[in-house]
């Protein structure tokens, strides 16, 4: 064995993955329930709760914008990391190309979402 002692940069992606995993576990089911079941069926919440004007106001406030940004970006970092490792698990060792796609999409989405939300708040 000649160990490759080069320091791994995995902590960056592992922490984003972990944060996204934690958030998706805590908030994911609730968001599915609110956006996919409760609002369309008019359960508990009024169908108006997610109307365009309401959601626009939500996205225009910095707390709402921050919430949307964190949800969109961290969920994607989580998904990208999981897909990358699952590819490896099923025997597809696609290397740099897979890395670029799996981590590139979350990175681009993070930047695009940040830009869009900042313009909406300002």
């Amino acid at each position, binding site marked *: *064995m000649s*160990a*490759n*002692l*080069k*320091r*791994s*940069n*995995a*902590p*960056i992606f*592992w*922490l984003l993955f972990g944060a996204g995993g934690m958030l998706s576990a805590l908030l994911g089911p609730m968001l599915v329930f609110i956006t996919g079941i409760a609002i369309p069926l008019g359960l508990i919440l009024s169908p108006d709760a997610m109307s365009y004007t309401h959601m626009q106001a939500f996205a225009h406030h910095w707390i709402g914008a921050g919430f949307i940004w964190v949800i969109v970006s961290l969920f994607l970092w989580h998904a990208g990391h999981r897909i990358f*490792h699952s590819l*490896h*698990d099923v025997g597809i060792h696609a290397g740099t190309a897979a890395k670029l796609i799996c981590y590139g999409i979350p990175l681009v989405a993070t930047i695009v979402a940040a830009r869009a939300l900042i313009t909406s708040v300002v």
Partner: protein
Amino acid sequence: MELQARRQNRKESRPAMSEIEKTIPIEVLRYRPEQDTEPVLQTFQVPFTDDMSVLQGLQYIKDYLDGSLSFRWSCRMAICGSCGMMVNGKPSLSCKTFLRDYYPGGLRIEALAHFPIERDLVIVMDDFIEKLESIKPYIIPKTPRALSEGEYLQTPEERDVYEQFSSCINCMLCYAACPQYGLNSKFVGPGIMALLHRYNMDSRDGGTEQRMELVHSEDGVFNCTAVGYCSEVCPKHVDPANAVNINKTESAKDYFLRFVAPKGAAK
């Protein structure tokens, strides 16, 4: 002659084959490099009693059916870590696994997964031994200490921090269980991480910095995808998955905090 006499003796002390009513088919993965181009399965009908372990089944085969069968064993009581093998696809100590649990169906015994086979059920363990050596599995004193200063003292609380990790018997079942080690054998792996953690957590030890370079590296903890099967198959109730997880957090902390408070040898 002496061997024959001993075998004769053993035959007499055991119930004769005809007195044992139950037999179980044992499929064994054979690999004899001088005649097999690849491993092949061979089935033996083995008479057994309810108190017989899988290891005793193999010993029966070697003594009475085919003396060329090779396997490692020593203590027969789950402390030496020699007799690890795949029993029906599960990494097991053959001395701690019983034939009665597979009756009447039978069982298949193969060499430990993820290791090269040397012969029959004997695997090549060089990779594991080299990794074990590389983590310095011994106490490295914080400061040199003269004999006259007496023994190191440790409270029960200080011992509790690492005790479970010290139960590792190097049987390598966790390596046969780890899908990531199977995919990439450069990964440091579960058992070695448990031992590394055992020494790092010892209040008498000062070698953490020397050991962490490997943990932080490309071959280190982040190859683990938290499957947890390593801890499930451990015959000594060590929790290597926990040692790996704790060190993922430690490594992530070090990755970012090293700029604030530089320490350690990692580059």
